[in-house]
């Protein structure tokens, strides 16, 4: 790549071509991000009349707040459940898609459509289907199990419902990448095992999973980012953080602290914590994909 002959040399022209992108990135991404960090050391005075420097008080307040710690705990648990749930279901469907010979392309579109499903639409549809009294799915589940599944009042059930919606929405994206990864595994690496008559499930676990591990890492990171940042509409439309803060994800708490309670300094500190989480995830992704790059086809 470095030997690539570049036909144009004018630094001015290059600058002009880059300016629109750089202006938008600096004005709307870098500047507000830096400003967030600065604001996290201030406290908004009553009625937004001004602000006062408070050092690390906002971070101390977060670290000592039981509500924030619970929110962090719920978010991490939520991310773990969404990652595991999404990958298990997507792997099952993707492996079937990979194994099926006839009609594969028709099946593929029928399996990846949830990629186009907006989170707010997914939340609205499942809010009704799983509604404790009116939901058809809840109705039959209750008839089958004999339990009362009132997730409007049960924290753990509400948490489970949010995980289910998030998994549903994420299936399409995950299946797209998993099917591509499975199709990229060179047959020379798998045919001997196949000739040996190794069963399908063992093939998946012993042969394919290690070979597609870069894709799996990528998807773990993307699903975690979705769980931390993209799940806001689920909470806002389905549970409002309740019952008993069981679904009060960090992103929802941040939204309320900033825009309902006007605690801008505190909310900025929460944003900074989220920045730490994304940075960590991106770092994991980079390290892992570097080390395992040779696995890819």
């Amino acid at each position, binding site marked *: 790549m470095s030997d690539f002959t*570049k036909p*144009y040399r004018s630094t001015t022209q290059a600058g002009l071509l880059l300016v629109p992108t750089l202006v938008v990135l600096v004005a*709307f991404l870098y500047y507000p991000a830096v400003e967030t960090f600065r604001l996290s050391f201030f406290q908004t005075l009553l009625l937004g009349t001004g602000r006062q420097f408070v050092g690390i008080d906002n971070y101390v307040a977060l670290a000592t707040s039981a509500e924030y710690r619970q929110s962090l705990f719920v978010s991490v648990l939520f991310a773990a459940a969404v990652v595991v749930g999404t990958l298990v279901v997507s792997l099952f469907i993707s492996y079937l898609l990979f194994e099926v010979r006839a009609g594969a392309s028709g099946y593929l579109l029928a399996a990846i459509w949830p990629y186009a499903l907006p989170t707010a639409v997914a939340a609205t549809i499942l809010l009704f289907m799983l509604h404790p009294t009116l939901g058809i799915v809840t109705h039959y589940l209750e008839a089958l199990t004999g339990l009362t599944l009132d997730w409007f009042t049960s924290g753990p059930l509400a948490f489970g419902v949010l995980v289910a919606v998030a998994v549903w929405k994420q299936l399409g994206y995950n299946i797209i990448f998993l099917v591509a990864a499975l199709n990229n595994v060179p047959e020379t690496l798998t045919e001997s095992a196949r000739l040996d008559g190794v069963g399908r499930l063992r093939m998946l676990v012993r042969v394919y999973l290690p070979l597609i591990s870069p894709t799996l890492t990528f998807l773990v990171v993307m699903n975690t980012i979705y769980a931390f940042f993209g799940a*806001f509409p689920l909470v806002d439309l389905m549970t409002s953080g309740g019952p008993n803060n069981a679904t009060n994800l960090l992103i929802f708490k941040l939204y309320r602290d900033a825009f309902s309670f006007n605690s801008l300094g505190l909310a900025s500190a929460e944003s900074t914590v989220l920045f730490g989480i994304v940075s960590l995830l991106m770092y994991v992704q980079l390290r892992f994909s570097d080390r395992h790059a040779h696995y890819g086809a």
Partner: protein
Amino acid sequence: MATNTDTATEPAPSRRLRTRFERAFGGDLLVHVALAGAIALVALPLVLAVVMSTQSTTEVYEVTNLGLGSAGLSNYETALTEYNLTRYMINSAVMSVVIVVGKVSLSLLAALALVYYRFPFERAVFTFILLTLLVPVPVRIVPLFQLMADLGWANSLLSITGPYIASATAVFLFRQHFMSIPESLVENARLDGVGPLSFLVRVLIPMSRGMIAGVSVITFIYAWNQYLWPLIVVSDQSKQVVQVGIKFLQGASQSGLTQWGLIMAGAVIALLPPLAVLVTLHRPLLETFAIQQK
């Protein structure tokens, strides 16, 4: 990595030792059945939503009523007219198209500079662009909101499109694609003395149709999905986008009963545009994703 390559020399009569999964899903027929079942299960909530969007409110309250309802398409009509969904759909469409066109144009120009120009600090500029992946909206939401107010952009199309029209991902994808274009073509252009912009329009864009389509689909679906940012920055209901618009539908009730049929109709309407885009353009999308992951 440890596959069973070491056993490759053995003859293969061990086929009798099939695992439970193999027995359960042994034949291709069973793969088809399992796959069709899984796909049906994933689609079930949507199918039920479509069915119930045709039901009147009293029919919806008969929980096990699974037939097409008597409301026909009237829920759709009511949602679109009385509940202003037409307005929200137009707002969403304008926002998404502006973001797609803006992002694709800006990113093509940036990638042109990064790949075909020699200039100081190339790597640093590229890294500077890529690092913005670390700051999704929630990380900068408070100052960004204040910035919109200071610029006088609150409640306007500018506020829901401006911050989204530059993108590290799109620049990265176009850069990757440009680098895969044969050097001989570039060399020809150089020898013919073709200027950079006509090189972009006459050579690069025609050779990047699939990639442009793929990035457009990703961007359109992403833009259409926006919820948190419009919810915060748009307070004038008539300027709101449809994802937030379906939240307004949730308040719809008739003599104390929530009009779930109407709400389902709204949800289906809000899903249709991205679904149509995906169905039409899934091929370039899949090819683009194949490059993104590299």
